């Protein structure tokens, strides 16, 4: 894998340019003009809200007006709040199941698409398509399929659990979210796997087939070990994305039935409706720390890949 290490400029870019000092100052002004407005907007749009969120998580603000500093009280309340614990366990469980399903299917599709098949380009075009469709819109389409079409199919074949809508079934509603999230996330994982598979030296397959390895044996003993780095990256990127799940859930169950499928993002967004802005900011800060840990894991993994 080619990975970006923190920028290493070529040595020649350090060489001073043949310009008189006066002119160089003007150059400097253009460079600052390129960078500084972006930095200012970025600070207002990203850094300030992040700092605000962390600051207000230590207060009792309802989103506007006066507030008092209350220390860690919000955090203490967070860890005993069944709504929060429910949202975290649902989201983490959902993310784990979805990331495994997504990667298993994406890997198999990638293996299939790099085999000696016909209509390769057409098939790849179809498999990538879900990536470009709006999550909320496709969730509405699946909403119809799960609540109208599937019960009809269940009725027809006499399959008991399909007869009522999957979306209103408290035990199975999460499954619909897994299916649609995976449907949407498979293409990007698949493309990364295809890139990985394409880089494997073909010799290895020829040698192992001379040694009498079966196709399955080659997959397990040649392909898989070489793909471990890609699998790791895909699982971490996927897990991080699924933890932020929102669109698909809004389109399918909107957190229901009850609050069975309410994700972390959805609980954070209730902050204004219910006037517990500060409390949800504590929630957001915890969520941020979890995302940060995953990001650091990802960095570690990519750096190790680079050393290899």
């Amino acid at each position, binding site marked *: 894998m080619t*990975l*970006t290490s923190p*920028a290493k*400029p*070529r040595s*020649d870019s350090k060489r001073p*340019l043949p310009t008189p000092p006066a002119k160089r100052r003007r*150059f400097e002004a*253009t*460079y600052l003009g*390129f*960078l500084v407005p*972006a930095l200012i907007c*970025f600070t207002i*749009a990203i850094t300030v*809200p*992040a700092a*605000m*969120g962390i600051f207000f998580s230590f207060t009792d603000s309802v989103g506007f007006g006066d507030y008092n500093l209350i220390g860690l009280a919000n955090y203490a309340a967070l860890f005993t709040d069944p709504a929060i614990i429910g949202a975290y366990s649902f989201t983490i469980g959902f993310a784990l199941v979805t990331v495994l399903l997504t990667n298993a299917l994406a890997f198999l599709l990638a293996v*299939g*698409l790099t085999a*000696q*098949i*016909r209509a390769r380009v057409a*098939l790849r*075009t*179809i498999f*990538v*398509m879900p*990536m*470009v*469709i*709006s999550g*909320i*819109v*496709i969730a*509405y*389409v699946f909403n*119809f*399929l799960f609540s109208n*079409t599937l019960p009809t199919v269940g009725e027809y074949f006499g399959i008991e659990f399909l007869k009522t809508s999957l979306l209103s079934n408290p035990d199975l509603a999460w499954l619909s979210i897994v299916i649609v999230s995976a*449907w949407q996330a498979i293409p990007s994982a698949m*493309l990364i796997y295809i890139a990985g598979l*394409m*880089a494997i030296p*073909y010799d290895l397959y020829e040698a192992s087939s001379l040694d009498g390895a079966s196709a399955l044996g080659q997959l397990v003993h040649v392909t898989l070990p070489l793909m471990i780095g890609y699998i790791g*990256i895909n699982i971490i*990127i996927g897990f*991080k994305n699924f933890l932020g799940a*929102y*669109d698909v859930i*809004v389109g399918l169950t909107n957190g229901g039935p009850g609050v069975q499928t309410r994700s*972390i*993002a959805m609980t*954070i967004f209730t902050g204004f409706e219910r006037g517990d802005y500060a409390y949800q900011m504590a929630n*957001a*800060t915890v969520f*941020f720390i979890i995302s940060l840990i995953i*990001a650091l894991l*990802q960095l570690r993994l990519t750096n190790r890949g680079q050393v290899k």
Partner: protein
Amino acid sequence: MSLTLQQRLNKRSRSRVGRERTNWWATGLLGICALAVLVPLFVTVSMAFKSAKQAVDGKAFSLPKPLSIEGFTEAWELVNFPRAFTISFLITLVAVVGAVLVASMASYAIHRNWGKRFYRFSFYYLLGAMFLPFPVLALSQVKLTGLFGLDNPAGVAILHVMFGLSFNVLLFTSFLRGLPGELEESARIDGASNWTTYWRIIFPLLAPMSATVAIFAFLGSWNDFMMPSLIIAEQADQTLPVVQQLFQTQFSNNYHVSFASYLMAMAPSVVAYLFTQRWVMSGLTQGAVKS
């Protein structure tokens, strides 16, 4: 000589000599899997073209008979399609142009002045935000955009550019590092100003990376639901994905209208994808491997 699978596939398709037999099993299996993608899309298209009378029974797999566009005309009126489309289009346009220009200019400044601490620090500062998920910032951004009078499509467009900045700067700086420096130096010796060098020399050289950045900015912005639904205060100014909510609360049984509306919301990104496939695919792998 050791070939990778990639080189082998290229060679094979060029010489058209398939020494190995086609794997029909794999082809067939993939064809069946492709149905999982195609069926929901087929249902969308087929429901959209049904007449009100036919759509009301909610049968997903019956073909439209007679073919009718009343769903489209009704959806057009109901969600005020021209308005929602224009707003989505303008947000996406600003987000795409902004993503390419702001990120490439910032990246060029950082790249050229890597020796100076301020620029190096800025690079890491921008990169730090890659780990910030939107839900963490959302409520505070709602407060801020309200304060600045940006709780409207303009605010969403600006936020789209800023959210993409981290990753786009990473892509552009790594691309700039791979460019030969000679062209730039000869331009400078000819007395070109900094702006001229950027606009006439660097920006054209960045084209492949700009294409990648633009496509992903387009898809991200056009399909976004979370940010506009939270930031845009005026319901009449909502984007195309957000206005689809209408069919969950009201008119939920007019399937031909809702599906016509979904189809009109999806179509632009699907069409754009079909025309830019190659860049979508190569861009994703570049991006992912670098992230």
